[in-house]
């Protein structure tokens, strides 16, 4: 051991003090402006250089819809009572894809932004936040096409369409919470990425995206447990917004408490851990 390298009384407690107006990041509006710039950056990098950029982001949900329609409607014989099954599928898949790709992309935001994080001082939360915003914009851009699609299948819009901002809020809180939480842990355990994909696939099948919720209602023993997943209520809310389905109040309550709780937890963990992400 070298001289003076064990903590002793003379060592000061770490204290970083700004005097006067020395703080560069002194307001929320500056962070918001950075988030806006980073959001635009990730959208531009995705869409520029390929005219079909936006079309590509629709190919995935459309293909999923076709496959799930064939498998669930024609092979397994499940169906939704009120509307054509492809409409039900498309509505849920777009919402799920927003939440999951926002959370998964956000989870690697600190790792892939390492060059930025290691060389400049800025609020690191802007990285996962901007990823979620970029995915939210993708989702919003796809919505008019979803409405056309729904209408083409003869489903009439209902006043519950006005509840869409509320559904979007819950999806965003969930994506941000999960994304911030995972992104703060990711720099320390890079193999978490592989685990995340598996967990999200499981989560996908535990939410009523590719099958009607009535399928679960037939199994009262599992129903209570199934409902503890906050995404059940959120996806139900999305179905209710676009297709006028009723929402169960219990599922909705769990969705609200769950997404707000996960959001708060994710931000808290991010604030604790992201300080250390440059150390590994």
């Amino acid at each position: 051991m070298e001289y003076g390298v064990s903590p002793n009384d003379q060592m000061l407690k770490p204290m970083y003090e700004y005097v006067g107006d020395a703080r560069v990041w002194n307001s929320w509006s500056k962070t918001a402006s950075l988030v806006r710039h980073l959001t635009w950056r990730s959208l531009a990098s995705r869409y520029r250089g390929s005219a079909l950029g936006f079309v590509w982001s629709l190919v995935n949900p459309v293909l999923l819809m076709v496959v799930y329609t064939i498998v669930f409607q024609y092979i397994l014989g499940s169906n939704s009572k009120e509307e054509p099954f492809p409409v039900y599928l498309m509505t849920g898949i777009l919402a799920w894809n927003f939440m999951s790709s926002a959370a998964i992309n956000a989870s690697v935001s600190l790792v892939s932004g390492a060059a930025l994080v290691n060389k400049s001082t800025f609020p690191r939360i802007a990285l996962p936040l901007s990823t979620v915003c970029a995915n939210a914009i993708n989702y919003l851009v796809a919505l008019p096409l979803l409405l056309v699609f729904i209408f083409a299948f003869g489903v009439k819009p209902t006043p519950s369409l006005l509840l869409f901002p509320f559904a979007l809020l819950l999806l965003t809180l969930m994506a941000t919470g999960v994304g911030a939480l995972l992104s703060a842990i990711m720099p320390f355990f890079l193999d978490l990425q592989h685990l995340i994909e598996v967990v999200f696939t499981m989560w996908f099948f535990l939410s009523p995206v590719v099958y009607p919720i009535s399928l679960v209602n037939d199994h009262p023993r599992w129903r209570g447990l199934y409902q503890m997943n906050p995404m059940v209520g959120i996806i139900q809310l999305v179905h209710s917004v676009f297709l006028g389905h009723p929402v169960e109040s219990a599922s909705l309550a769990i969705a609200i408490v769950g997404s707000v709780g996960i959001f708060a937890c994710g931000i808290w963990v991010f604030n604790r851990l992201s300080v250390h992400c440059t150390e590994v």
Partner: protein
Amino acid sequence: MSPDSGEILGLEGVWRKYRRWQRRPSSLKDAFVRLFQRNGLVYEDFWALKDVGFSLKRGEILGICGGNGSGKSTLLKVIANILPMSHGRITVRGKIATLLDLGTGFLPELTGRENIALNGAIMGLSDAEIASKMESIIDFADLGTFINSPIKTYSAGMYMRLGFAIAVHVNADILLIDEILAVGDEEFQRKCIPELQQLQRNGTAMVIASHALNMLSALCDRVIWLDGGRVMMEGPPNEVLERYSPHLVPAND
């Protein structure tokens, strides 16, 4: 704004510890397996900064010299609050901007103009500030019509000019510069030095870490020699560099 003699940055007893694992668990699987192994989680502490302290006045340029691994970059990152310190006290009385790397956060698909806006936002400028500085940044970078082309079409020199142009326009009180000046060609360096001196006259203080001793002696008011994370000597550039240069070891040694 006239330069006054007040302290703008103060470091007191700053220590920075790195935890050096014998085999660092870099994955969940690894960490889990190691929990059950004897000596699985053995590490030793390595101090990259030991009891570093100095004070910087408004408009003063402080140079930092020292070999590879002496703690120069760690010190700049700790001052910028990019890396947390383990012990110590840092008092900041002015806005800090960093120039630790040229073109940090540049996106190849975006044009020069768009990258200026993005980089300004990363450095903490508001949209109004970015807009008001845009033209003078473009003038300084002197890229001609390339400013409206995606920067993936830029040469390395143009890239560097744009990064430097942004950093000198952020109106920071303290500018932290790491080794970037040694990278550019001679013409670029000739342009940088007067620009930094102009900033200094306007009251900007700087901390410059560099291997280029001639540049340190040309620019700095004071130089700190770091070795093994400890301040070996602090004083006027010529005195410190004279004592330091015998310690320079040829790279192939």
